[in-house]
């Protein structure tokens, strides 16, 4: 099988006591190929986090099947293998760090996996270098900024040598600098190490940097395409409580005023180029 993740007609329900079960995923199917950099968008409650939790068997399908690297996630004896293939990073860095020294934290999973000490040393150093935190290896996590902590959490996953990382709003609690650091790190893992990235985010500018954007709404996939294609659906996105990058919105608004500018502008540079041309014609 080529895809690293295959979800086939996934169904999932949350059950609150005394209430009817709530169907969160509705026959949802998706395939993610090795080396892809995919953003998943959707408003709170759309089902996107529930979907992501199927990708490393935190949740198991209640209908349909989810395969990770060809393994059916319902195979309990393969859980270890699945989690080693697909690592997950969460929103709050403080909830993910367990040790009192950075390098010990990165080594935590490896120790549990029974990796040789010399190999652990090698992998921890490598992982910390890959996220740009090697110089901080002997620091205490509480001395680090949010962005740095998130990078340590990512290093802990990288040290397991996964094929895929799933990040659930990793920058939600960070300031702009921390967000940039984390985004740069994730991109580097993807381009230099070929790690597949699934990034769940509420930031449209982050999604615009990915290769593929999947929009989840009400338990189904609404849009699944390149960022340029997805963000050209301004009205549809707004209808489901999402947004578009400001560059996209400005061009959209100008087009509503009767101009006919390209509809697939998603970056600052593209927007500047289009506006510069527009203004020089009007001179």
């Amino acid at each position, binding site marked *: 099988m080529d895809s690293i993740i295959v979800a086939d007609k996934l169904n999932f329900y949350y059950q609150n006591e005394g209430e009817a079960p709530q169907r969160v995923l509705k026959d949802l199917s998706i395939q993610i190929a090795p080396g892809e950099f995919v953003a998943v968008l959707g408003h709170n409650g759309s089902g996107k986090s529930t979907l992501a939790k199927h990708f490393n068997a935190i949740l198991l399908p209640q209908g349909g099947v989810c395969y990770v690297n060809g393994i059916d996630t319902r195979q309990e004896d393969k859980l270890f293998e699945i989690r080693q293939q697909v690592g997950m990073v969460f929103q709050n860095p403080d909830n993910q760090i367990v040790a009192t020294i950075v390098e010990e934290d990165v080594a935590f999973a490896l120790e549990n996996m029974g990796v040789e000490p010399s190999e652990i040393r090698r992998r921890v150093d490598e992982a910390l270098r890959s996220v740009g935190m090697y110089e901080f290896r002997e620091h205490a996590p509480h001395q680090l900024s949010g962005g740095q902590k998130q990078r340590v959490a990512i290093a802990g996953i990288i040290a397991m040598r996964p094929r895929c990382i799933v990040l659930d709003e990793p920058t939600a609690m*960070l300031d702009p600098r921390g967000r940039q650091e984390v985004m740069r790190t994730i991109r580097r893992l993807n381009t230099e190490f070929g790690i597949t990235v699934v990034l769940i985010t*509420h930031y449209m500018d982050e999604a615009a940097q990915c290769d593929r954007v999947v929009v989840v709404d009400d338990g189904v996939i609404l849009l699944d395409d390149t960022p340029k294609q997805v963000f050209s659906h301004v009205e549809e996105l707004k209808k489901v409580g999402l947004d578009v990058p400001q560059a996209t919105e400005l061009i959209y608004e100008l087009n509503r005023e009767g101009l006919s500018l390209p509809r697939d502008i998603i970056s600052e540079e593209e927007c500047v180029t289009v*506006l510069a041309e527009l203004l020089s014609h009007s001179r």
Partner: protein
Amino acid sequence: MSTPVIQTENLSYVYSKGTPFEKTAVENVNIQIEKGAFVGVIGHTGSGKSTLIQHFNGLLAPTSGKIWIDGEDMWANPKEIRKFRFKVGLVFQYPEYQLFEETVYKDIAFGPTNMGLSQEEIDQRVREAAGFVGLTEEQMAKSPFELSGGQKRRVAIAGVLAMRPEVLILDEPTAGLDPRGRELILGQIQEYHRRNGNTILLVSHSMEDVAKYAQKALVMNDSRVFMYDDVDKVFAHAGEIEQMGLSVPQITRIFLRLAQLGYPVSSDVYTIEQAKAQLMTLLKKGERPNA
């Protein structure tokens, strides 16, 4: 000029003073915040902004320097500090983790009850605050833990609104919410400000949000106030602000770039509406000679 609602003089705060971990978090802050202002507070993690706002309702006492609320020296009599906590309401980050009562109603009523108000007054305030943040009668009887994340956060905000603070400080009230949730909460705060004219301090990492909702911006950098001025004047310093690890709205960067390229646009554009209006005016001017 009327008395500023918050005023500080050489306010400094040092954590763990006298230990090897001593760290100055706020240094020599002199600021006057006008009554009724809607202020966006920005600064990177560790810039001192959270430490500063905790002084505004007396959670922290300055290591040195002074602070006045409505012209009254806050620490003149430390026993009376409670009075200032009712005057200045602070909504923390992730306030939904602080809900604890059996029902939404009781949770919102907690603050006003502690103020020693009559039952009637409490009831009126709870309903008003709940109405502001869009909670329904049905939700009031529920346990706060049955609600969604965004709803819980609105309950927590209502709990502070119900105390009718003169100054409302919100520390990243939209962290982790989706765009619609962000707009909903900020829109409600804006409406609250418009109707009651209270002073609002909104701590945010989102420059787009500060640009959209605030009139003034307070920028903290390295424990000091870098700037306190009207939003457009602050964002005109885009270069310096970005160097501090903050960012200006994407639209501001686009207009700065156009200005650098020699196009006759102003560099203090910070919302989509302004950008659109300016471009349309320029285009119309351009059309005339050809017409």
